[in-house]
């Protein structure tokens, strides 16, 4: 139930993550062995099912991958995809309700009451506070009436009572993913639950859940210095494309999203052609596929939604953001790069590996070990998404007494070196070896594998690309790295953002009395 992009940097300022699911693949456990245990079927409604048999223990994990995220939120409705994702835990016409026929009527009244309230609330001229209060009361009464038919959290309760663990979902800018793990003898029960919520979701308790999502925003973004920094950074880097918009939603917009808007989003994007479901674990494709086909055929067919027309225009002026607050300093900068389909995609991965991977990396050795000005520093890409042109980013955490400007200078020195001279044979070989090994490491985890297979099936139309990408990794040359570095890392393509420490506004005080 999290908004992925805003949570990437949530957990700690110092544990810097730059994990990307699109990490270029590696060689083999191998492709042949996976072809033998992996089955793909496209159903008549366009939905794709991928089953990977891995009978190590009597459990399975699944990932439902929707090729739509907050980048698809209509103007004025930022946070909509994430809001819908929360709705998908609220049940269906059959689960979570005592009487759907009556509930449906009550929910329509909630929607009408909300429309009336919102119309008054948004009036620029002539808004009547008394009328507004009255409409708010009416909205609450309608919600209370609809609530009478609700069995709260019944959908998740049935999953958890049946042994589901890791019940969650993530909404990114590019996509939305639902997932959990379960004992294998609940496969059919899961298929019922999952296909039900995809096909038959009900906008139940929507306005309460909207409050919950706003608390999520307060936690991840407003009350978190790195969350605040990255929201401003990305918003500055983009002028046209939706990547620049808050993924969890701007407060004024996410607080106005309606159930009708969420259901419209569902109708457009939750169609068979836009969904891949991957199941990995103790599952026999021959017997499971017909059963899964029966359940997932309930998902409405529909055309693959049209891709957006907006392309971020070429940046021609350097941009900076300075945040002055009580937090300790942090520095970030980014350069626009192409999307994941670019022929140089693996070259960007090579640059990240050489800049940032481990204590041998150039940035660690330069800024942390030798100059001793940074606690952590790394380069990573793409951010905030990979489906559309994202940013190649650097993030640095200064040591006490050192400044964001020193981080910038230290990073630029390493960039200049990469542009001026070839990387060594050892560095290039290390990138290729580590990429292969990391692909292999990911293959022994049901949930990780389900997520990856679903993503590759969506992004490349073929999960095999997970293995085939290794050929592209192998082809990366020293000249490629220099060429890309010289194109990418130029000042006019740069946005930087940092936090400078400001003195506290006031001393420690008590919140005892209402102040």
């Amino acid at each position, binding site marked *: 139930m999290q908004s992925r992009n805003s949570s990437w940097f949530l957990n700690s300022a*110092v544990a810097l993550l730059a994990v990307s699911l699109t990490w270029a693949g590696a060689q083999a456990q191998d492709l042949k062995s996976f072809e033998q245990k992996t089955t793909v079927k496209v159903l008549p409604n366009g939905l794709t099912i991928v089953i990977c048999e891995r*009978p*190590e223990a*009597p*459990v399975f994990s699944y990932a439902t991958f929707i090729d739509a995220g907050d980048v698809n939120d209509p103007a004025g409705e930022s946070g909509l995809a994430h809001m819908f994702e929360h709705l998908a*835990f609220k049940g269906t016409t*059959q*689960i979570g309700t*005592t009487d759907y026929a009556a509930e449906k009527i009550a929910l329509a009244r909630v929607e009408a009451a909300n429309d009336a309230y919102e119309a008054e609330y948004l009036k620029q001229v002539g808004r009547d506070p008394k009328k507004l209060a009255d409409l708010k009361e009416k909205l609450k009464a309608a919600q209370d009436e609809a609530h009478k038919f609700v*069995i*709260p*959290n019944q959908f*998740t*309760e049935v999953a*958890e009572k*049946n*042994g589901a*663990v890791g*019940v*969650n979902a993530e909404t990114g800018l590019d996509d939305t993913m639902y997932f959990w793990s379960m*004992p294998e*003898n*609940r496969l*059919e029960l899961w298929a*019922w639950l999952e296909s039900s919520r995809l096909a038959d979701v009900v906008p139940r*308790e929507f*306005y*309460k*859940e909207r*409050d*919950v999502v*706003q*608390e999520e925003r*307060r*936690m991840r973004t*407003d*009350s978190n210095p790195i969350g605040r920094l990255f929201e401003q950074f990305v918003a500055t880097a983009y002028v046209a494309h939706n990547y620049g918009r808050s993924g969890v939603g701007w407060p004024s917009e996410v607080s106005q999203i309606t159930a009708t808007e969420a259901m419209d989003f569902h109708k457009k994007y939750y169609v068979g052609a836009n969904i891949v479901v991957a199941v990995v674990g103790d599952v026999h494709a021959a017997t499971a596929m017909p059963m899964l086909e029966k359940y997932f055929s309930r998902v409405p067919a529909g055309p693959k939604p049209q891709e957006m027309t907006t392309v971020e225009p070429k940046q021609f002026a350097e941009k900076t953001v300075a945040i002055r607050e009580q*937090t*300790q300093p942090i520095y970030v900068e980014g350069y626009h790069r192409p999307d994941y389909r670019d022929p140089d995609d693996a070259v960007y991965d090579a640059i990240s590996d050489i800049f940032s991977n481990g*204590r041998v990396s150039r940035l660690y050795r330069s800024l942390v070990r030798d100059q001793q000005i940074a606690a952590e520093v790394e380069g990573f890409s793409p951010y905030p998404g990979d489906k559309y042109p994202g940013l190649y980013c650097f993030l640095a*955490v200064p*040591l*006490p007494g050192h400044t964001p400007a020193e981080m910038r200078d230290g990073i630029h020195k390493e960039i200049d070196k990469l542009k001026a001279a070839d990387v060594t044979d050892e560095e290039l070989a*290390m990138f290729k*070896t*580590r990429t*292969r090994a990391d692909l*292999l*490491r990911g*293959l*022994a985890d049901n949930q990780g594998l389900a997520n990856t297979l679903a993503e590759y099936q969506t992004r490349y139309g073929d999960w095999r690309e997970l293995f085939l990408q290794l050929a592209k990794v192998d082809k990366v040359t020293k000249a490629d790295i220099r060429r890309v570095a010289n194109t990418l890392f130029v000042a006019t393509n740069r946005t930087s953002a940092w936090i400078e420490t400001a003195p506290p*506004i006031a001393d*420690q*005080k*008590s*919140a*005892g*009395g*209402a*102040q």
Partner: protein
Amino acid sequence: MKNPTLKNFAKASLLAVACAVALAPAALSAQQSKPWEKIPIPALHAFKPQQPTRIELKNGIVLFLQEDHELPFVSGSVLIPGGSHDEDTAKTGLVELYGQAWRTSGTAKLNGDTLDDLLEAKAAHIETAGGEDSTSLSWESLKGDSDQVLALALDLLFHPSYSPQKLRLAQQQAAAGIVRRNDDEDEIAERESARLVYGPDSPYTRQPELATIGKVTVDDLNAWHDRTLTDKLIVSVGGDFEPAAMEARLRAAFESLPPVKPAPERHESFAGPTPGVYFVNKEDVNQSNIEIVGLGTDRHNPDVPKLALMNDILGGGFSSRLMQKIRTEKGLAYEVGGGYGFAYDHPAAFRVVVLTQSAFTVEATGLALAEIRGLTAEDFTEVELSRAKDNILNSFLFRYDTRQKVLAEHVRLEFYGYPADYLETYKAALEKVTLAELNAAAKKYIHPDKLAILVVGNSPEIKPGLDELKLGPVHPVDITIPMPKPPAETERKQ
């Protein structure tokens, strides 16, 4: 959804399971047809998790070998008793520095930087870490490199060469963490609530300061290493290796060490928090982090299975009381949960956490307190107990669904001195808990009058104020980071 009380919970086990626990009859409207209950749940496929081989050397060191040939990797670790709980208070942070500088310094033959180059070229890793009750050295590599990487790991274990430069690097990193520790509201709340429970100077909560880490020397690191390497080491290896050869390698490395020292008896007393309301002001947030805390228990306590079920009802998953009330019904929080903690070797904390926007701080605190009081004021229902059992027992096999988890569980039980069949016993005890026992356990362990309430939030936005809780005066908590005086001119020369 994080559940703080369960996050260190045992994750692996042993037994062959074929449980198909029947769904509890839910007390719901007759109008629901419940189609999901008509879906057959066949018997689970037979499953006998592979147990690691345990070898106890005559000096008391224990080896665990867990073969797993799915992928061509070998990983291992040496777990060494003794951690930050046992360090000198004046040098708090020593073990953290030790854990970092051990690996980055390297060995007499091969310094840390050269070791980095050698290992990364093979996509291999050797790492060291300092924890609360142990330190560890671990390694991982592709099968083809595993002999060489094991040799390097053993060299680092037995012949470390702590370097002043790498200690300094670790001190700088630690200093960065110290000066940043008040940036994130969540980190403040977690740290300060633990200090309320255990006291600020307890080994469980004291924190490194710039002054204490500055006092740590290379001699201290050497002394720590020499002292702890004679304790009972637990060596575990998992992955794609040949067991007879691996056993021979490890015997050759560890069998000649002197007999291990017996673990010292711990004499600790835990008083729990001084009840009351505590407050940390943070001006740059719009959400309050509320923690309601008290003292928990340890896993030796036979009532733990009852408490685990109580926790599931109070704050476990989506259907828990805290979640239903505060998140689903009231829409006041995204993150809410908690329960009565139990650790392996000391009392964990009772901890309930709610994150809500500043203006609703008092309301959300009141609701969480009401749910805590409700644990003893009213009896649980059979439906709740049945659901909690289903939640825990039907997902129990995820504690041992991979060979790595089974191995880690064996190491954990060995380290804390629990029997190897602990998870089986625990599961059997969970199954047997009755409603009367659950009710009695709640009354025995839940004491709302002994809890402390900590709020981290933005004072001017908290309206009504915390005095509206009517729980006595609000105690401000000082979280100022002590900054050492700048050195005088004369000291700066040298």
